[in-house]
């Protein structure tokens, strides 16, 4: 058997693939964060809680209304996105003129409240959510046994990430968005309703988190703490990729997933820390992050 650094090659390839799968979640979550930060200048700490809400809404749809996984993949992001719009209109929009820190504190508080409410209603052990029957089973790739569902996660994450990037960078809608962040009064003078654009952007960022939440529901137990496990890493991803950089967050998300996956083979105890180690090194060498623009 071929060995790489004393690890059998098939095991290493397997870990690379698994790293990509986790990276898919990091990429989707950090993408939403980057969009929100880039457009609204809000450091959205509630992202983890809204990711969790996405998973819970999918569970509730199935449990209460019998609505299955695929409709939930559309419905849950819509529902949570609307919730995000309401949050933005009623609470968050009041903070745009203040320092970043206020937005951070507010959204952090919101996430504690949201998680607390779900914990109170559903406990913390988690709720079962089954993998849809079409995606059950696994494929033998030769070097590892690949669950079909995980393959689906990577594919759909890639599709979502790339289309988001395309919409923002290549369409006229995206151009309006970017222009509105650069110079809101000027864009408003052209007849664009800038506050509405911003609200919808926040809603879309939240919908991305909820989409990731639905994708995560069959893999992890649906529980109120599921977002907190991700959110710290995801923030590190955004910082490493460069605050507000869309492409940066996608590439860094997948990349860090792989680095974390490899750490799990060589020194598992450090797997939760390695992301932050990378963050420190990047910040020392490139304070703007890998893809950040000069301020």
């Amino acid at each position: 058997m071929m060995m790489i650094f004393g690890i059998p090659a098939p095991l290493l390839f397997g870990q690379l693939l698994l790293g990509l799968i986790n990276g898919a979640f990091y990429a989707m979550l950090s993408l939403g964060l980057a969009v929100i930060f880039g457009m609204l200048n809000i450091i959205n700490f509630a992202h983890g809680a809204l990711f969790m809400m996405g998973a819970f809404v999918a569970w509730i749809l199935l449990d209460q209304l019998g609505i299955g996984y695929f409709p939930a993949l559309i419905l849950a992001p819509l529902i949570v996105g609307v919730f995000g719009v309401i949050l933005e209109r009623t609470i968050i929009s009041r903070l745009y003129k203040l320092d970043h820190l206020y937005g951070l504190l507010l959204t952090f508080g919101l996430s504690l409240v949201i998680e607390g409410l779900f914990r109170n209603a559903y406990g913390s052990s988690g709720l079962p959510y089954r993998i849809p029957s079409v995606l059950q089973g696994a494929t033998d790739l030769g070097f590892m046994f690949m669950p079909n569902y995980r393959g689906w996660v990577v594919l759909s994450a890639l599709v979502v990430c790339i289309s988001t990037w395309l919409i923002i960078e290549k369409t006229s809608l995206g151009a309006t968005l970017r222009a509105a962040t650069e110079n809101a009064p000027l864009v408003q003078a052209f007849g664009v309703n800038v506050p509405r654009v911003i609200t919808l952007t926040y809603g879309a960022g939240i919908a991305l988190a909820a989409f990731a939440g639905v994708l995560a529901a069959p893999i992890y137990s649906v529980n109120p703490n599921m977002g907190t496990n991700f959110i710290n890493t995801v923030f590190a991803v955004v910082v490493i990729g460069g605050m507000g950089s869309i492409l940066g967050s996608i590439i860094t998300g997948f990349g860090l997933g792989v680095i974390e996956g490899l750490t799990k083979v060589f020194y598992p105890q450090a797997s939760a820390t390695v992301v932050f180690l990378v963050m420190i090194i990047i910040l020392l060498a490139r304070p703007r992050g890998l893809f950040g623009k000069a301020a």
Partner: protein
Amino acid sequence: MTLSRRSVLTASALALTVPGMPRLARAQSATIKIGVLNDQSGPYTNTGGATSVICAKQALLEFGASNKDLNVEIISADHQNKPDLAVSIVRQWFDRDNVDMLLDVPTSSVALAVQSVVREKNKVYLNSGAASSALTGEQCSPNFIHWTYDTFMLAKSTGGAMVKAGGDSWFFLTADYAFGKQLQADTTALVKAAGGSVAGSVQYPFPGTSDFSSFLVQAQSSKAKVIGLCNAGGDTVNSIKQIAEFGINKTMKVAALLMFVTDVHALGLDVAAGLNLTESFYWDLNERTRAFTNRVKDKTPKNWPNMVHAGCYSATLHYLKAVHDMGAAEAKKDGVVTVNRMKAMPVDDDCFGKTKIREDGRNLTPAYLFEVKKPSESKGPWDYFKQVAHTPGDEAYRPLADGHCSFVKA
């Protein structure tokens, strides 16, 4: 309202003459205070949490009904699985709030951290939630009773059954803290003593790990026959879910070394069916356990009691009996004396039946090995387990001499 000097004088004069007043003052000074400390917001909320507090209060309700002269108060706090936070809460409870008995305290790292504080303040510490067998071994204390279960008993019951069924090579998936390491050590000793071997292990960061797939693939490539899960609560739920997803359970046997009925509820029977696990209490064991569960289940309808919750009930009940026996004032004075009184008295309650508390503080509860039912076998809510084996209390735990507890005379 303003107070005149005369009314104050009249009031104090009255206080001296009213015969009820001094008695009231005495009763107040001898209020027994119980502090339930556990995880109320993190991964172990359902295995302990509010249901532990409800069960402790149930014991008080039942005991207080026939012993109205005892004044008892139960308070609780969330330790968030942080040893430093727990130590400061416990110090505050002892120094400021006059707490006499500390109850539950899951998460072995936390349980071990508060052990020395309780000993220093000479209070009573009845642990139901934590698993580490070090609590009655090298880290033992005369102020301490380990009530419900421990890592040795889990290793012997679940691990022993696995080895007996031919699982002689193991790979461990271990939460990287006191509990996981102790459970792995205790199970390793047992597997090796039975002639088995350990093919490898992975220690993952706790808390904060939710994806176990990398570790599971490593486990599979080790070619071991059994994957031993040395974790608990949400981590166990997630790892079992992912074991099924990756088809690991087709080539390896899964030993969930610590799993509660609440975890099975979270997993769902379609994923959990066939797993073996050990608890010292299950609601549907016998008439008495069913009677107990019927009394409390309406107060915690979404989270029926598991062994940790039952332990909180049983420990509180026995503590109150001892306190009543020796007098509240006497019990407040000296934690070691109270614990010794508890050890001398036979324990008997609806949850565990008759048990005995050993010299080193080990309550010898029986160990039941269960198999999780298939969805088709489950007849009603929370009907999850079939009993496979039963180990009586005096055989279930580590022999006294092997624990090397400092205050136990050899």
